[in-house]
């Protein structure tokens, strides 16, 4: 049975990734915070007495279910109206990038590091945008497999599908991301 300390450490280790993953899915920070909080509470309340080794898998399942529940609630709530945040472009920050580059060029002392930082931010922004554009199952499989560092069997169990499906989803996700980043002249 996980102690309170172990559970706390576990939640601390996953909360940021869980939040970002939820944002990629629902594209709404407030909703993502709610989903992560609900998932944490469910894990703590219903599975707080489970061994620490079982917590990651349980949490992934709970997080996926809470996200699905959120989508279901949204569907019933907005049966007639589209969610406007779905149409928000996350890559319309061209002016900001130019300004950053300009400031970096002005300041010759720090030009290299500022340029690097801008480049890094740009790559991250693009990666996040492309991840958001992936089909749901591909995104889920890819993030669990590589970001949560789960193996194929664990990912399959958490997603409730076969290992073959996980491999296919991951492969397609990698191909799509690689192609999209190459097209923009970026490298991860």
């Amino acid at each position, binding site marked *: 049975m996980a102690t*309170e300390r172990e*559970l*706390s450490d576990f*939640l*601390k280790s996953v*909360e*940021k*990734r869980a*939040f*970002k993953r939820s944002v990629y899915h629902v594209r709404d*920070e407030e909703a993502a*915070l709610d989903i*992560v*909080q609900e998932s*944490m*509470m469910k*894990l*703590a*309340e*219903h599975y*707080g*007495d489970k061994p620490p080794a079982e917590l990651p898998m349980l949490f992934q399942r709970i997080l996926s279910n809470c996200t699905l529940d959120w989508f279901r609630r949204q569907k019933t709530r907005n049966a007639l109206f589209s969610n406007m945040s779905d149409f928000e472009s996350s890559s319309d920050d061209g002016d900001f990038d130019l300004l950053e580059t300009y400031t970096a060029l002005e300041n010759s002392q720090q030009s290299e590091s500022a340029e690097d930082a801008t480049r*890094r931010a740009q*790559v*991250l922004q693009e*990666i*996040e945008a492309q*991840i958001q554009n992936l089909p749901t199952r591909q995104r889920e499989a*890819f*993030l669990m*497999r*590589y*970001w949560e*560092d789960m193996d194929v069997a664990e990912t399959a169990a958490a997603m409730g599908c076969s290992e073959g499906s996980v491999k296919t989803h*991951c*492969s397609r996700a*990698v191909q799509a*991301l*690689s192609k999209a980043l190459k097209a923009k002249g970026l490298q*991860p």
Partner: protein
Amino acid sequence: MNSISPAMALARQDQFGRRIAARLDAGADELPHDITERLRAARVQALARRQVGLQAAQTVSASAGQATLTGDEHVSLWRRLASVLPLLVLAAGLVTIHVIQNERRASEVAEVDAAILTDELPPAAYADPGFVQFLKSDR
């Protein structure tokens, strides 16, 4: 011309995935302060909820243990009877419906028979050889 083995392709895929994951990690580490604070608050709330969950589980197991230890057979017997009661009511209902339907059908047939028997016989019937035969055989 571009022939790479499946193992190599998989290795490249894994490598790419991990590079992306490293980028995402860096992004997650730079979350705004208000978000990290709200996540922390959510974590604290979840841990408090764990206590409630554990206490509830203990209460349930304790009451279950008490019930088995004291072995209150009367309660369990009444519960068993209560669970069987709806089935009994259903069976009784079905039997009642069957009896009522039978009676109704029988009374309908009896009414028709009575109507035929009490009705006046048309004169042509007496000339019918079949009817004469019927009257004879009835004797």
